[in-house]
């Protein structure tokens, strides 16, 4: 279909708004059963024994994209949302599905209570200086 040279010329334009509502991708779900809310800077990592997600008929193209993007380099939830141009809420649900399917795991950012760890903050200062 994409090889027909038509490219992006559709009968509708941007003014029509999204033709598929974003939450259609999540089949209307706005939360994921898997876990509590994922932080914007939680990092998603593809399991290295994850097979080819394209062969899994239960996954949407967006699921497959996430598995692919996080295989080479772990990505934060915010980056995935920006990269896929999807609302954060949608991305969260999709990631929840993938965690459930054991295709990715999420490493949680440092919890607030542990944040003021002096050695990390010192590393941040040194890192900023070296930029």
């Amino acid at each position: 279909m994409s090889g027909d040279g038509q490219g992006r010329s559709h009968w509708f334009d941007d003014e029509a708004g999204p033709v598929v509502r974003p939450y259609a991708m999540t089949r209307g779900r706005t939360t994921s059963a898997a876990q509590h809310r994922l932080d914007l800077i939680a990092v998603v990592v593809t399991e290295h024994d994850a097979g080819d997600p394209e062969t899994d008929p239960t996954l949407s193209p967006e699921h497959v994209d996430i598995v692919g993007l996080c295989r080479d380099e772990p990505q934060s939830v915010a980056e995935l949302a920006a990269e896929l141009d999807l609302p954060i809420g949608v991305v969260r649900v999709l990631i929840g599905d993938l965690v459930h399917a054991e295709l990715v795991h999420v490493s949680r950012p440092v919890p607030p209570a542990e944040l003021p760890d002096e050695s990390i903050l010192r590393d941040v200062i040194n890192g900023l200086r070296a930029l």
Partner: protein
Amino acid sequence: MIFGRSERGKPPVEPVTLKILVAGGFGVGKTTLVGAVSEIRPLRTEELLTEAGRPVDDTSGVEAKHTTTVAMDFGRITLREDLVLYLFGTPGQERFWFMWDELSEGALGAVVLADTRRLEDCFAGIDYFERRSIPFLVGVNCFEGAARYPAEAVRQALDLDDDVPVLLCDARDRESVKEVLIGLVRHAMEYAADRRQAVVG
């Protein structure tokens, strides 16, 4: 040595991620500041909100719910392979405060950018971080053509506590923004140390 795909058995590094918020009024230079130090062009994430129509939206006669988009711009600084800092510009409009709650959870601290011509625009941000005990500093973005005020005058005008740093900066200038961020992390360290003492003492 073998490079590339044959190294696939090796799991990728999972970095520790930290975030700093950049708050301030509309047009004060939040995204400019993020862009000055970010290794990527500031990205935009969006969240869809459904809210009941409000009087300000003039929905008289239309009782349907509205979908609004809140956008946040963010940048990334890889400090080390295993340590990544994200900078988030907070959404400007005050009716999106609840997004701030989510953003500020676990944040290292916040930079409140101020413009001396419209100082009142940053009151809301200062209030917010004070109330939630999130370490912050005030960066006075020195716009060309705006009168320069000494940091002390700005501190007084904003009625800041003595320990809140006030720095004059240029949001377009990488070195200047680096200084602001270093100042904030230092302040966060002191803040954490004080709090620990308060708990022990």
